[in-house]
């Protein structure tokens, strides 16, 4: 049974790792306008991460703030899904990851905004508005790449197929009573949102096959250790310092 603090860690870690990956695009985006758009995505995700982690730390009651949780936990203590750890790849992979995550987050946050637990509901209500824009942004690019040139069509199709196995983890039964929802029930509406974008992009939904799992219990991909080593390096080199 997942407790609320651990659940909040999962929501926070999803957002934190997604922010970390999205921000890797800074100074590398395909167009200046997209620099600004991707940075906004990263900032929204980072803001959500901070809200969830701060709350998780307070509930835990051991004096860990957002930074202690982000920088001083080891790999196996992170509760994010593997989807968000995947390397950015080309722009199509990033668009696919963003679409799949944002569509899930938007459905989840919209429901959590009605949760009986008021602070969770408050954070989710704000995050739901942000993720709605992310869905719109990622759908727009899925369509333009999927229904663009033959090259972009191939890249978008490959990206969707590459990332698809990592989407199943989003719907694993992993939510405390306070959340008041069954993650598995989100998959139907999620398939609708994602399917609409894929359809307009002249792409087909991949077959379900091998499904990644383990992130929620601290088992991650081989890329995740590197991401953490980089993210935590300065903080850990100066124990107890203020920034």
């Amino acid at each position, binding site marked *: 049974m997942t407790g609320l603090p651990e659940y909040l860690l999962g929501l926070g870690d999803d957002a*934190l790792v997604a*922010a*970390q990956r999205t*921000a*890797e695009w*800074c*100074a*590398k*985006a*395909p*167009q*200046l*306008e*997209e*620099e*600004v*758009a991707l*940075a*906004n995505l*990263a*900032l929204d995700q*980072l*803001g959500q*991460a*901070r809200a969830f*982690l701060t709350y998780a730390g307070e509930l835990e009651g051991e004096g860990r703030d*957002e*930074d202690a949780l*982000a*920088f001083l936990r080891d790999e196996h203590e992170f509760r994010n899904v593997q989807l968000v750890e995947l390397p950015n790849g*080309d*722009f199509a992979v990033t668009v696919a990851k963003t679409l799949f995550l944002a569509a899930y987050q938007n459905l989840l946050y919209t429901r959590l905004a009605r949760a009986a637990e008021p602070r969770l509901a408050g954070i989710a209500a704000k995050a739901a508005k942000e993720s709605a*824009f992310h869905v*719109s*942004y990622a759908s*727009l690019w899925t*369509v*333009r*790449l999927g*229904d*663009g*040139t*033959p*090259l*972009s069509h191939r*890249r978008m199709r490959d990206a969707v197929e590459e990332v698809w196995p990592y989407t199943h983890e989003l719907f694993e039964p992993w939510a405390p009573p306070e959340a008041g929802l069954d993650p598995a029930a989100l998959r139907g509406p999620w398939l609708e949102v994602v399917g609409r974008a894929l359809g307009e992009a002249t792409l087909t939904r991949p077959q379900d096959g091998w499904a990644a799992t383990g992130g929620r219990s601290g088992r991650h991909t081989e890329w995740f250790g590197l991401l953490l080593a*980089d*993210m935590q*390096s*300065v*903080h850990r080199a*100066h124990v*107890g*310092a*203020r*920034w």
Partner: protein
Amino acid sequence: MRGTGDAAEAENDLRRRWVVSISAFDALIAADQKIENKDWMPDGYRESLIRQIAQHAHSEIMGMQPEAAWISRAPSLARKAVLIAKVQDEAGHGLYLYAVAETLGARREDLLDALHEGRQKYLSFINYPTLTWADVGALAWLTDGAAVVNQVSLCRTSYGPYGRALVRICREESFHHRQGFDLLHTLSRGTPAQRRSLQEAVDRWWQPALAMFGPPDSRSTHSASSMAWRIKRAGNDELRQRFVDLCVPQAEALGVRLPDPALRWNPERGHHDFTPPDYDELMRVVAGHGPRNRQRLAHRRRAHEEGAWVREAAAVHAAKQAAKQAAGQAGRQAAEWEAGRAAAPDDARAAARETGGPGEGWPLWEVFVRPRRGLGHAHAGSLQAPDAAVALHSARDLYTRREEGVSLWVVPSRSVTSSDPEQKEAYFAPAADKQYRHASSFPPPEGVEGL
């Protein structure tokens, strides 16, 4: 065939018109009025502006790199957010400035090519490495600080679109400058290792920051004409002095030593004396021989090349949509497109060139924002987008990210028709003597109310 007499007459006519135009232009400059993009301007003025604005825009986007390198390692989540927001602003600044250059007839794609091929320059400080987290703070405190001094003066530039972009940029630069100082101030109260890294970073960035003001006026090739045309409003030496005078007390507050043994207050001049930066080094670095020139330019070029397929895909998609719409309007079946799928992209690419202007660039859009407290949409700036939906998304990210707006319009720039500056008198002067149109021309008699 024209006779030689006709040709001479035509040339005379041209010369007469030029004399009229240049005196009108000089009068505008002398009266401290703004020059707008459709106004007549001498070629030299236009070229100087494009050169300066392009170099400014290049510096904004190249300057993202030394700081973006530290986003992933930022030692707290709060600092990470601030740094992402700052680097994002610099992309926005580049974008506003390329749009200003476009008002002068330059194309963003050509300017980027000139940057990538080394034909146009960017500020030299960007070619130095950021070795520690403290460098992120020192870079912002010193080089964004120098940029604020420079650009506050530039806000009064004679070219209207440049001045308006600079007002927006300056507001954001002061956030950059402050957050840099704040970062360093935290280090200054931190561990011995943090304090040491602070001093070392300031030692590294002081000279590159001083060099940002360019060579002394006596050695600057463009300074004099830029001053005469009021493109620039203050000389390099004056601005550098202002910057040094501002930095000294701030350095004291940080408890750092500025690395210049000759730095001291000169009561006679009412300014600090200081050692000027090494101009030979400045010239070497600008010419491409600094510690990071190669990597910075290669990084920038790679991002541009790797993004080409994305830009093209969006342009082709927009053209397909436009073609579908046109086909629908002409009563033809959209199915034709589906049937000829393999051939479509080439046609679409040709159409993309038509809708997007020459080359691979996306078309330009004008953005109008209705402010939170405001009745009408006002022009906020421009951006490039393949189609209206992307334009709206980008406009939201670019022009409303500081809570500026509640509603957006985007309009293709080519759809804007503006009044002819040469007809300014004919259009607008006749309204001046018709005061009877205003209620204030009819004062009500004493004691009569409700009129």
